[in-house]
């Protein structure tokens, strides 16, 4: 048996269409079988509600008198991109306010507009013959704009990786707060309720597919940026009219020490055309694999700590390294269900018809990493190969002499095999003079937990270590903990300064 989209739409118009939400499908298939499910159900609605940083809106303000060709544009002190025509701008959700930092950003501007609040527009221009005005400041509400079109380059990820943290300090990431020593696991996405999980072959979701977007009727523009269905990470570029949107499905948020983002509610209605679609909408949380990655490793390919499923993540606990670890979600499953049920009601009431894509999306491609043409700046480049060393059984006085002679502030402490076991600084020595009573040897005053780097570590990572631990030099070690150089904050500072100037 097969069903055509026309047949389904006729049922929608006649008011006898049968719609269910995606989370009900496994049960229905279990009860009726695949054939029975196809006969019984016409449409499956999906939904997701989570942080989608790659979002924003094109706004058109209309012309002022005398007119202005806006070059730089701010909305409530959040800069919007003004490099398009005279009175248009694109506000991106992650852009931060110039006065309020990450507590207010592009996402908040959009939430304010959708909530009906006034937003201050400020723009400047060089002035031209046809657009003489040089600046403007005015307060606008959503209703005062000609258009406010949400265009999100990358939404609705098919699935996400989950995050944990092996290091000994709390990390603040776009995956939320990650406690030290695998203290928790954070995940995102609606699992089996997610739109792309229910149509991984992208048969019914493609350019032109009508969708639910933040309470409005929106549309799929095409494949999202970073679209990588070949690795299970498909994405969608979507668009919708902000004037129809509701705060119920659009919320600004701030990830601590990371930045501003927008929670977007997005849903797709999937027509059950044939048995193949029945099977794909029958996906369960147990079927969807998720890698838990270690965000303590600051590289593009983070190591997988464990492979689990959405079902396990949603249970609230997983076992990691032999211990039970609490899991929690960043996206809201409750709101995702609300998206799916609202879309279901729209269809049941004949307010929303379906259509097949005017253009299919690629369902096998894989996103490429960035091509980098400049060699990666590593510690090797700027470290000093001059190392001043001492052993732990030498006296503090010897250490002081070595520091003076070497004109340096750091002495690395080596064991008999030449391996790094500690570090002493001029500060440690001065302190030992003031606090009498401690022993007279290097080992009595040295720091044993030495923060270190390696020759091939990226300079930005080394710089982050200096900053985070508030120290001024890092010993550079090889695989056997032998010190091959020193990286100082002064050398690094000079280099970073040059880079920012570009």
């Amino acid at each position, binding site marked *: 048996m097969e069903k055509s989209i026309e047949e389904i739409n006729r049922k929608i118009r006649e008011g006898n269409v049968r719609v269910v939400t995606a989370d009900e499908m496994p049960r229905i298939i279990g009860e009726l079988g695949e054939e029975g499910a196809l006969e019984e159900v016409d449409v499956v609605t999906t939904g997701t*509600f989570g942080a989608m940083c790659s979002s924003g809106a094109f706004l058109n303000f209309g012309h002022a008198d005398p007119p202005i060709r806006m070059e730089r544009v701010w909305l409530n002190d959040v800069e919007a991109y003004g490099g398009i025509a005279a009175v248009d701008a694109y506000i991106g959700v992650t852009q931060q306010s110039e006065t309020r930092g990450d507590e207010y950003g592009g996402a908040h501007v959009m939430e304010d507009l959708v909530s009906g609040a006034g937003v201050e527009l400020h723009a400047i221009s060089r002035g031209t013959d046809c657009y003489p005005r040089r600046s403007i400041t005015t307060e606008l509400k959503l209703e005062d704009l000609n258009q406010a079109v949400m265009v999100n380059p990358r939404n609705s990820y098919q699935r996400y990786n989950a995050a944990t943290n092996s290091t000994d300090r709390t990390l603040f990431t776009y995956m939320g*707060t990650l406690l030290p020593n695998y203290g928790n696991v*954070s995940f995102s996405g609606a699992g089996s309720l997610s739109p792309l999980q229910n149509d991984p072959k992208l048969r019914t979701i493609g350019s032109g597919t009508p969708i639910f977007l933040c309470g409005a009727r929106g549309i799929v523009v095409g494949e999202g940026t970073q679209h990588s269905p070949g690795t299970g990470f498909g994405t969608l570029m979507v668009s919708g009219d902000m004037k129809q949107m509701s705060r119920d499905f659009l919320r600004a948020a701030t990830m601590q020490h990371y930045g501003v983002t927008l929670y977007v509610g997005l849903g797709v209605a999937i027509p059950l055309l044939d048995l193949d679609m029945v099977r794909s909408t029958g996906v369960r949380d147990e079927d969807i694999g998720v890698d838990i990655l270690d965000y303590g490793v600051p590289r593009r390919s983070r190591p997988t700590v464990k492979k689990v499923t959405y079902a396990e993540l949603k249970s609230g606990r997983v076992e990691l390294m032999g211990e039970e670890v609490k899991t929690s*979600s960043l996206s809201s499953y409750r709101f995702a269900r609300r998206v799916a049920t609202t879309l279901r009601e729209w269809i049941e009431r004949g307010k929303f018809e379906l259509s097949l894509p005017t253009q299919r999306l690629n369902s096998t491609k894989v996103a490429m990493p960035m091509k980098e043409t400049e060699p990666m700046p590593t510690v090797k480049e700027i470290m000093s190969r001059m190392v001043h060393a001492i052993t732990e059984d030498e006296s503090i006085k010897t250490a002081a002499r070595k520091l003076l002679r070497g004109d340096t502030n750091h002495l690395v402490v080596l064991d008999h095999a030449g391996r790094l076991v500690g570090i002493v600084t001029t500060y440690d020595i001065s302190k030992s003079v003031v606090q009498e009573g401690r022993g007279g040897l290097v080992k009595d005053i040295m720091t044993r937990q030495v923060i270190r780097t390696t020759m091939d570590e990226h300079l930005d990572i080394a710089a982050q270590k200096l900053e985070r631990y508030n120290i001024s030099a890092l010993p550079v070690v090889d695989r056997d903990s032998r010190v091959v150089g020193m990286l100082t904050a002064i050398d690094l500072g000079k280099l970073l300064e040059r880079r920012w100037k570009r």
Partner: protein
Amino acid sequence: MKLLLTYSKRKGGEPIIARIVKETGVLITVERANIDTLAGEVLIDVPDESARMICDLIKSRGAEVRILEQGIVRDENECVDCGACISICPKDVFYMDHEWKVQLRKGRCILCGRCIVACPHRALSQSQ
């Protein structure tokens, strides 16, 4: 009931809590303590019926005390029931109910403040 005790070391810095436990025999649980060289802040849990008496005793020893009635409060207008607060709370204050709504067991809160910054929607705050 949770009491927040603050004292400065200059006023003796004596082991106030230990003394009170010894004198009264009331069981006091220390839930959280921030103590540095000059001052201390200690959060304790005491049985409701002895709270008044314990408060008076603490005050008579020169420390300040405040009853924390509420713990953490949530702004329902901002919360989206994501659950980000669940896994970072050391006291399991938050949990997901059957309707996927996040619920609070306020009595357990020790006001460590972790969830306040971890909530992406700024829905949590310390009531006072």
